[in-house]
């Protein structure tokens, strides 16, 4: 056996202990690096944009003059877009989840649909944009209106809603449904009156989180072709529209020409982040307050 003198041994142990302590601090720094970056980003955005936020900016129309520009149109556009995305994804997502969890026999078809859904979740958002451009804007000839954008966005976030709803339904213990069957209820009655109410908080949390993804998503809408032009406020889902991220995009591109546009972009980012913060907090509140642990 390889014998070490006591001195060598001490030296080696010291080295190992030093490495151990040293690496711990490196690992810790890595974990906190993200937080540091986030803090810098927020400080930067707020200092750049807070000066531009006032009631005129929030309620005004877009304008070619930076000092007169407002984002009411983009706020309304985001609102109308969500009015399409939320019901469509909730309906399709929850229905698909019910089918997969309650009706489908475990077999090839189910695992095929399941694999398909997780593959769809990995498709880049810009590819959905091309699908939307081709199918909704061109083939169905809707043009670049709220409905076309909303349907495209719905397809994009659908995999997230389906998976979240599936998890929510799966977490309902079987004794609840068995008790319902035992009282003579049919399958659909059980789903309708027992499972869905119990799974609702989980489903809503997932749906809200995926909506917050849709609100910040830009790429598919760029592809569909949201104009940088000054368009009237959208009043229905058949109107042309712009949304907050699109406005950030155009103003960031213009920032190299006119410096004030960077401030407008930052101010719009603040509005967008506040909206996201409210949505996410709502999701967390619903999860903590209404979700029962069975």
């Amino acid at each position: 056996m390889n014998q070490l003198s006591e001195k060598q041994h001490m030296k080696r142990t010291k080295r190992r202990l030093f490495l151990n302590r040293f690496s711990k601090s490196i690992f810790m720094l890595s974990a906190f690096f993200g937080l540091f970056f986030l803090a810098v980003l927020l400080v930067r955005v707020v200092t750049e944009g807070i000066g531009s936020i006032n009631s005129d900016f929030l309620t005004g129309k877009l304008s070619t003059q930076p000092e007169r520009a407002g984002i009411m149109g983009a706020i309304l556009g985001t609102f109308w877009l969500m009015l399409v995305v939320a019901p469509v994804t909730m309906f399709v997502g929850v229905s698909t989840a019910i089918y997969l969890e309650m009706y489908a026999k475990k077999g090839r078809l189910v695992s095929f649909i399941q694999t398909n859904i997780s593959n769809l979740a990995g498709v880049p958002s810009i590819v959905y944009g091309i699908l939307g451009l081709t199918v909704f804007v061109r083939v169905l000839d809707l043009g670049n209106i709220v409905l076309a954008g909303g349907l495209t966005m719905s397809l994009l976030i659908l995999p997230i809603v389906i998976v979240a709803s599936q998890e929510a339904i799966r977490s309902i213990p079987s004794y609840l449904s068995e008790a319902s069957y035992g009282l003579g209820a049919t399958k659909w009655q059980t789903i309708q009156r027992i499972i869905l109410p119990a799974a609702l908080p989980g489903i809503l949390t997932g749906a809200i989180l995926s909506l917050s993804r849709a609100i910040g998503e830009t790429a598919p809408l760029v592809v569909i072709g949201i104009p940088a032009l000054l368009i009237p406020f959208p009043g229905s889902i058949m109107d042309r529209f712009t949304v907050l991220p699109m406005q950030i995009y155009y103003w960031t591109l213009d920032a190299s020409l006119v410096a004030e546009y960077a401030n407008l972009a930052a101010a719009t980012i603040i509005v967008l982040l506040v909206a996201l913060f409210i949505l996410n907090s709502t999701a967390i509140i619903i999860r903590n307050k209404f979700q029962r642990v069975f």
Partner: protein
Amino acid sequence: MINHEFTKADKVNIRDMIDQNQRGNSIRRRIERLIPIFLTVIASLSILTTIGIIWTLLFETVEFFKRVPFLDFFTGTVLKPLSQNPEFGVLPLLMGTVTSSLIAMAVAAPIGLMAAIYLSEYASPKVRKVVKPVLELLAGVPTIVYGFFAFTFVTPLLRDFIPGLQATNILSPGLVMGVMIIPMIASLSEDAMSSVPNAMREGAYGLGATKLEVTRKVVIPAALSGIIASFVLGISRAIGETMIVTIASGSTKNFTFDITQSMQTMTAYIVEVTGGDAAAGSTVYYSLYAVAMTLFVFTLVMNLIARAVSKKFREEY
């Protein structure tokens, strides 16, 4: 004693009730039969989406390759879609995509992995409970915000250190994209490492190993499949990322290894073409689909690899 004799009126009522009940039952039965059919139709929408994506891409891509030879597209180093003599080589775009993804992974892989090690092996439950959600906030920030940050803050900052850096370059969006991917890698790797059973760690501690040695020689090898899968998914995410590179890397179709230059990625090219007025039916228009198809295949292959890796090499404890 209970009187078992019913009056005539009572009998009629019960008959009615049974009839009513049966009628209700038959409606209910019909609903019970229709609901699964209805749900199956809706569930097949996800398959329809996949078919829709592949069909749209394939249809127009075939049209593109009727005009531009397959080999010219995949070996061409010049992309000049709008010039008099247009050339459609995809290599400049591939170069941009690969370069930006590599830069992103150079940031995200080490930092994400080390953050995962800290969260899984070192942090107290209390710290983990705070740090993890905040790290996930980073993943929730819209990519357009990262794009803005890369373009208006990171690039000017880097230009102080790297004199030759262009106003639009591939380095800055690559770095920012890396930060964006950190939470994804950290969270997936942490899941893999947390699922390594404690008995394995304790065995190594019993032999006198330090925490670092346990992590390096026991936990990471045991969780390797999950860690690799998280890296592959990170690459796939970087390849598909659009807004950061579109804003901060510009639209110069450079075929170069110089990361201080502007380079266009596949995603940014799609944005440029759809944002312009490429007339439907022109070769430029079809090139959009060929590039999108390449992008789609790239990310699909990455996702399949990630799934295969985490399935095949998963050790059961």
